[in-house]
């Protein structure tokens, strides 16, 4: 049984019932008490009436991955009562609305019956209100059971109801009714409870998609095109929300343009047109959109146009699991489009990095003149994470890459010793100089095309020239490997030959697992990949180890394949460690996978 500031509580509700805001308020209150929390929304691809869960892990130690084993269940959904009960650990608690009495067939779980509907019926006449305030009544009961700080709850209520102040007193009343009932009828507080802590102090609570939208604002993006798809929609919405506040002139003119396109083909086409014309441009999508965008990604790759694409991954293939998380697009993004193509990928591990890598993505795209994809996922994108605050250095200069002004065009030959050509490698880094439409009356015009072209962008069917140009573009990826974010390497055993490779949302689960494994007597080194193409550090780490667990959320061990293909890591050293059921990774999963391989006896004991 877990204890103070260390437990998992799960809310089982029906979507569309208004529970989401009450649940968020609950998590936010704990966060504001300084307690590290993680909140995971498990929701259906549906608008109303289907089961939804909200899991909150409370961890003073700062372990914020999902954890199996529910200590406290708030069972508000009659459709799932029985399954929800089964999830509770022995010795745990279950709170339900006893207005409709139920039979609970477990004696090892304490059942707390709260007459929620009855309380609401006797206090409010309006049917909708009765429904909505039910959620606040259980929050009130929890406040007593878990000894939450009432003042902080009230502040959270105020915050949540900004602009709807009329509702504040009624909400407070609902909380109080639940609280008073619990104090009078339940053994408050329970052994699992909360207290003020320091771990979350100074942090922020935010979703990765809002962070990515904000990144685009800070990166100076002005053209955004998108097509609605879960779980990426809130990236464009985040951009719009922040741009509306910070990118509108005094006379109401927008310093940005957003187009909700007719489909993903158009969305990326708009981004490419904008980037070609010198505006920082981006789109956001998820798996099915990546498939549709593939042809255009090849064009942007071959014609060397810098766009940014936020891919908020979800479970595939096909429509797959639209509301469940995963990392199943690694290969389809690394090699998106036909022909020899390769793309720069960034792997943020939390919302803070969606912001920092999101802004880096625009610099990298323009520096390298190629699409850059930010590979987030539903877990990072749509869940609230307690994470480091966003940071911005005002001295930072956005890297707009090699774009020639009229004067630079005129002086090009004198400065560089040869005439300008759109696809000439003048500097030896395989990155050519580009010009924007409208720059100069007589110089710098060229024809951008997806057909084969020579160094001056002229159409060619000469195979030798074609090979020369695509070789130069491949060399550009050698340059890319030196400037993309370097991996995060943690060394627990300098001489150790065993390690873990991971990336993205798996970070908290892996770090937690590494702690447990150390207690199991296994000190493992670890490398978090932050980008593709892989730099020298990645190769060195792989070369220094002979057993590497590659933890990822897809069936086909796609990152492992990429390491074999692109970093030439011997396949026998890489052990696929795969979770692809759509739920965020747990530390337990990683620990067991490692033990199974290295300490089979211990693994059996852990089952």
């Amino acid at each position: 049984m877990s204890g103070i500031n260390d437990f998992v509580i799960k809310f089982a509700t029906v979507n569309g019932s208004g529970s989401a805001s009450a649940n968020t308020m609950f998590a936010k209150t704990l966060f504001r008490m300084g307690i590290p929390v993680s909140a995971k929304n498990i929701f259906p691809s549906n608008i109303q009436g289907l089961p939804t869960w909200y899991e909150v892990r409370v961890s003073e130690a700062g372990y914020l991955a999902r954890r199996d084993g529910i200590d406290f269940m708030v069972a508000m959904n009659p459709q799932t009562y029985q399954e929800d009960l089964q999830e509770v650990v022995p010795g745990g608690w279950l709170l339900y609305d006893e207005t409709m009495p139920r039979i609970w067939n477990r004696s090892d779980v304490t059942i707390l019956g709260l007459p929620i509907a009855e309380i609401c019926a006797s206090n409010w006449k309006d049917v909708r209100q009765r429904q909505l305030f039910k959620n606040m009544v259980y929050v009130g009961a929890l406040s007593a059971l878990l000894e939450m700080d009432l003042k902080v709850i009230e502040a959270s209520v105020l915050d949540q109801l900004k602009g709807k102040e009329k509702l504040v007193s009624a909400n407070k009343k609902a909380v109080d009714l639940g609280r008073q009932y619990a104090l009078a009828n339940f053994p408050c507080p329970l052994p699992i409870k909360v207290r003020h802590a320091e771990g979350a102090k100074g942090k922020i609570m935010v979703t990765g998609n809002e962070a990515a939208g904000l990144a685009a604002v800070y990166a100076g993006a002005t053209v955004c095109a998108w097509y609605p798809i879960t779980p990426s929609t809130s990236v464009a919405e985040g951009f719009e929300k922040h741009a509306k506040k910070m990118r509108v002139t005094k006379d109401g003119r927008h310093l940005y343009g957003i187009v909700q396109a007719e489909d993903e083909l158009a969305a990326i086409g708009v981004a490419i047109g904008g980037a070609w014309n010198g505006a920082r441009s981006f789109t956001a999508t998820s798996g099915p959109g990546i498939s549709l965008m593939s042809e255009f990604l090849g064009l942007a790759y071959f014609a060397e146009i810098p766009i940014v694409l936020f891919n908020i991954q979800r479970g595939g293939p096909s429509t797959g699991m639209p509301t469940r998380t995963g990392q199943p697009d690694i290969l389809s993004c690394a090699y998106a489009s036909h022909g020899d193509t390769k793309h720069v990928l960034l792997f943020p591990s939390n919302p803070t990095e969606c912001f920092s890598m999101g802004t880096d993505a625009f610099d990298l795209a323009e520096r390298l003149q190629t699409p850059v994809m930010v590979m987030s996922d539903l877990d990072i994108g749509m869940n609230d994470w307690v994470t480091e605050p966003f940071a911005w250095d005002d001295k930072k200069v956005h890297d707009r890459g090699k774009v020639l002004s009229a004067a630079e065009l005129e002086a090009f030959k004198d400065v560089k010793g040869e005439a300008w050509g759109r696809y000439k490698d003048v500097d030896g880094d395989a990155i050519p100089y580009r010009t924007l439409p409208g720059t100069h009356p007589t110089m710098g015009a060229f024809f951008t095309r997806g057909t084969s072209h020579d160094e001056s962008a002229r159409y060619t069917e000469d195979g030798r020239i074609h090979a020369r140009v695509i070789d130069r573009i491949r060399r550009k990826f050698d340059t890319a490997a030196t400037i993309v974010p370097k991996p995060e390497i943690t060394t627990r055993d300098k001489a150790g030959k065993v390690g873990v490779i991971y990336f993205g949302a798996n970070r908290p689960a892996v770090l937690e697992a590494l702690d447990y494994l150390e207690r199991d007597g296994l000190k493992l080194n670890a490398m978090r990949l932050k980008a593709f193409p892989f730099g020298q550090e990645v190769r060195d780490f792989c070369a220094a180890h002979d057993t590497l667990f590659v933890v990822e959320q897809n069936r086909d061990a796609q990152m492992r394949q990429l390491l074999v293909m692109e970093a030439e890591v011997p396949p026998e050293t890489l052990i696929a460690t795969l979770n692809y059921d759509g739920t965020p990774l747990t530390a337990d999963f990683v620990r067991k996978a490692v033990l199974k391989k290295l300490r089979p006896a211990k693994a059996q004991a852990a089952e």
Partner: protein
Amino acid sequence: MSYISKPIAHHPALPKNALGLTHREYEGSMSTLCAGCGHDSITAAIIEACFEMDLPAHRIAKISGIGCSSKTPTYFLGRSHGFNSVHGRMPSVTTGANMANRDLVYIGISGDGDTASIGLGQFCHAVRRKLNMTYIVMNNGCYGLTKGQFSATNDKSSPSKKGEANPFEAIDLCQMAIQLGAGFVARSFSGDKRQLIPLIKAAISYKGFAFLDVISPCVTFNNHAQATKSFEYVRAHNQAIGRLDYVEPKEEITVDYASGESKAVTMHDGSHLILHKLDKGHDPRDSNAAIQTIRENAAKGEVATGLLYINEAQQDLHDVLATDDRPLNVLPMSELCPGSKALEGINARLR
């Protein structure tokens, strides 16, 4: 076939426009299309229109999809940036380009395959968005570049060169454009320069979505006598509705058009369109009448050409988006990036 540049040999007698430029400076590289292809005539008309309008070529962006027609931007305006994108997607690329820089002139070139089949969705939505551009379809009723398959604009009555019948109804892009809210819709014929050049000028002057469907015979695959997009057929059935004069901003309107027969329409850039013979039935400011004119002529096997529809008061996408007067691509980072202080405020709100 590779790129063949054209030598720029200046003949002192070549006429110059107000910018001191000759036709040659508005040309591109040598055409590689079939000799006699209608598309080449449209290319020549675009060159002529831009030359006569004294447009600085580097302030024009030419964007196309894929097809013989979409290759033509290489053959005109060599001083302009061009973008030969992917099949059927010119409208989205142009949308992004236009969003980034509202100050350039956008000429989009497409084919009937490019627009009426693979790109039909993008075409419709570019119209709906009221993109400020000139959208030219070089319409030959077939897929030239893939060797002559029927396209969706080929008339049902028009058989292939080998005599196979066309089983499907044709899409009339002008009718669609009008229904979807295009502000400027015209149809013309590659073989009628006198009609085509003023229409191109008017379309470029028009602020908003200007659509030009230009019948442009494919001499290799769809120019047999029974083909309704052949030179012979169109010459015999061309029904020019009204006549249009384009008057440059700098010129004065000299003709007397007050008689009721003619009407002057002032364009956004100060130029004028003089519409003649209005009383002969077709008023291009009436969208219902425009559609009726197209359909009545089509029912008789005739092709109504000329300015079919114009809405002088249309807004464009930038009006809808309320974007700044300055192009988005020149805004300095100091105005785009809110800085660390604002970020501190955002962090505070997330605590």
